[in-house]
């Protein structure tokens, strides 16, 4: 890893309010080339908000964000050419076919139509969904849609990937493929920033884990470092410990007790 180089992503004191609610309370972060970062945290901790701010979807933050050395605040769109994004909620123009959708996205990145079409089709083939390339996306299964989203984020060979829950809906085999793709991409110098709720996946593939809670970073480091700090065996346990959650057993017992109540 070349951590002596200039960082790919720099976030300084990022704060964001929705109305009176403080969603992000000062995030500081430096990300370097080739890192695979697992961005984890409980629901509503501010994970997706961070990513959306970086992509320009949410305005009105305070603090500074630099992507590849450029400040993103002054209506700059050039940096988006270097980013590939898979959103958390699979929003997609689903009355289009995959061919139409993917060439459209490619063209928005400034690629030439014929080339995108060809590239997209080949990527679809590798994912084993080539036969639906000309069917409307609305007819796809959840996993197929997710594959289309993953392809759409890679068409322009971006340097940075923001993948929000990239594995949702994928079957076990596809998950393995995507995991391999991630490490392969990282080894080619791509920087990957992704979030997931599946802790053992995060544990295995990230070389840096950032845990965010209530809009603040509460842990940042490799899995080994986190393990040493927390004296816990698995990321799941670390997660529970750092988010102050340890009553899962009693909650489960209470739940089942209600289920079993007599009619």
């Amino acid at each position: 890893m070349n951590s002596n180089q200039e960082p790919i992503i720099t976030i300084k004191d990022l704060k964001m309010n929705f109305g009176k609610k403080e969603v992000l309370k000062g995030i500081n972060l430096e990300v370097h080339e080739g890192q695979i970062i697992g961005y984890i945290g409980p629901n509503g901790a501010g994970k997706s908000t961070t990513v959306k701010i970086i992509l320009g979807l949410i305005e009105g933050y305070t603090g500074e964000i630099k992507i590849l050395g450029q400040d993103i605040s002054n209506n700059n769109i050039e940096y988006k050419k270097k980013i590939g994004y898979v959103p958390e909620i699979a929003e997609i123009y689903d009355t289009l076919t995959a061919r139409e959708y993917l060439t459209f996205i490619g063209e928005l990145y400034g690629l030439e139509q014929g080339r995108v079409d060809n590239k997209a089709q080949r990527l679809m083939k590798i994912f084993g969904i080539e036969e639906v390339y000309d069917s409307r996306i609305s007819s796809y299964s959840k996993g197929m849609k997710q594959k289309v989203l993953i392809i759409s984020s890679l068409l322009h060979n971006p340097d940075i990937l923001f993948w929000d829950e990239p594995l949702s809906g994928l079957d076990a085999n596809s998950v393995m493929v995507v995991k391999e793709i991630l490490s392969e991409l990282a080894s080619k110098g791509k920087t990957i920033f992704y979030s997931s709720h599946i802790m053992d996946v995060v544990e295995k593939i990230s070389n840096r884990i950032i845990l965010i809670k209530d809009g603040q970073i509460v842990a940042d480091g490799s899995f080994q470092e986190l393990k040493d700090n927390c004296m816990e065996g698995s990321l799941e346990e670390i997660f529970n410990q750092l988010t102050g959650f340890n009553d899962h057993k009693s909650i489960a017992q209470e739940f089942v007790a209600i289920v079993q109540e007599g009619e």
Partner: protein
Amino acid sequence: MKEFKTLMVLDKFKGLFRIVGVDYIVMRKILQVKLTMDGRRVPTAIGNSWKKNNEQEKKDSNSFIKSLWLYMILGAIMIPIVMHGENYIFQMSLIFAILMFMVMSTLISDFSYVLLDIRDRNIIFTKPVDSKTLNMAKAVHVFIYMLFLTTALAGPALITSIIKHGILFFLIFLLEIILMNLLIVVITALIYILILKFFDGEKLKDIINYVQIALSMVIALGYQLVGRIFNVIDINVIFVPKWWQYFIMPIWFGAPFEVILNRNYNTFFVVFSALAVIIPIISIAIYIKLTPVFERNLQKLNNNTSKGEKGSKKFINAISNIICSSKEEKAFFTFASNIVKNEREFKLKVYPSLGFSIIFPFIFIFNTLRSTGWSNIASSKMYFTIYLCAILIPTLIMMMKFSGKYKAAWIYKVLPIKETASIFKGTIKAFMIKLLIPLFIIQSIIFIKIFGFRIFDDLILVLLNMLLYVVLCFKFTKKALPFSESYEAAQQGEDVVTTFALMMLLGGLALIHFLCTFSSFGVYIYILAMICIDMVAWRKVFAI
């Protein structure tokens, strides 16, 4: 992807977009995708009556463009108004009132999705596309449709105007239509901003839903009105300008004709004319200023903060205890009443018919009113028109099986339901309590006001007959579990013969009732008979 002629025309204005700093190539790509997607959806208001066969559905054909001729027929209403004399301020204000209403409600009901699509931001704005280009693409998208729509609506009137009033009139008319379109887009957007500022997305969707319903009704009634417009409106009114007219936009647009063509330099008319030009231009400026606010508020569309009211739940619960015989039936009663209350697509399909069944009984009375007086009507048997509100019943029964979320019908399969009869009974009872009975009660009260208390027994009999009619409608239409089929399947629907036969059946029930009124105890005997028949019918027919 298809190449669109519209876009080729747009290419001619390439330079113009470049000047304002829009990336034309990207904007064109976005529009191409948008128009392709539009080709794959059905407009709401007119789509109801628009039957597509399956083969057609496969092809991309913009059904809005195809339905334009319907708007053209509606636009023909305005021909006689244009033709009629030279009382411009009145004629043209009326025309602009019609145009503004039609264009605005169509914009809200059919093209809100263009203004309100939040996917755009997530899908396109995360790519290297600047917000100016994206917003311009949206604006052009809406404007393309407005152009088609107003051309179809105002086309007949425009052509008539050249022939009747000459080229100057035509040019003023044309220019004003363009100004009007700009104004309408901006007003609509501003209304949305306002609603989203104070309410959440669900409320806005509800409001759009009601506009759609109103538009469907107005269009259907509009066809009836084409021939009669001059009976309803006396066009030779002398127009007296008043201060409050400053707030009536159609009058602004009527004034320039008066000023330029009739050389009427009344201060009022001059100010109206000035408003017609200045306000649209100012509003565009405001709109451009407010677009970022709009975009931000749009994010609220996904937030549903509002909570359901609890009050009506108690009522539904109490009613279900009285009229439902089993637990299952009660469950489906509650379930169906919630769906009736919440599902917008259902409302869109059913509420227009609901509106018609409110109006129809009175239309006949008012038609007679013109030839005879009130006292004649009050002593007549005109109250039989109340049977017309039962035309809602076939629609209800036929629509029962459809839902936008028809796939959720898997629950029927996995639940251990003993007999389907309770599903149907519960649902139909819910429909009646929620829709039919309130309608009937309101109508009965009005009818008693008109015809006096003497018709009370008859109204009871009407209600009993309607109860039987519900069962008969169920018996003779295709049966499927409630909310288990998609609305697209509704397009094939029930054949005309069935619908007609059901109407005849209703007529038959009304006829027997009518004949009974000639013997002194006829109605009472019929009531007793119907109570028995209803009880048996409700018990037997649903068990299939």
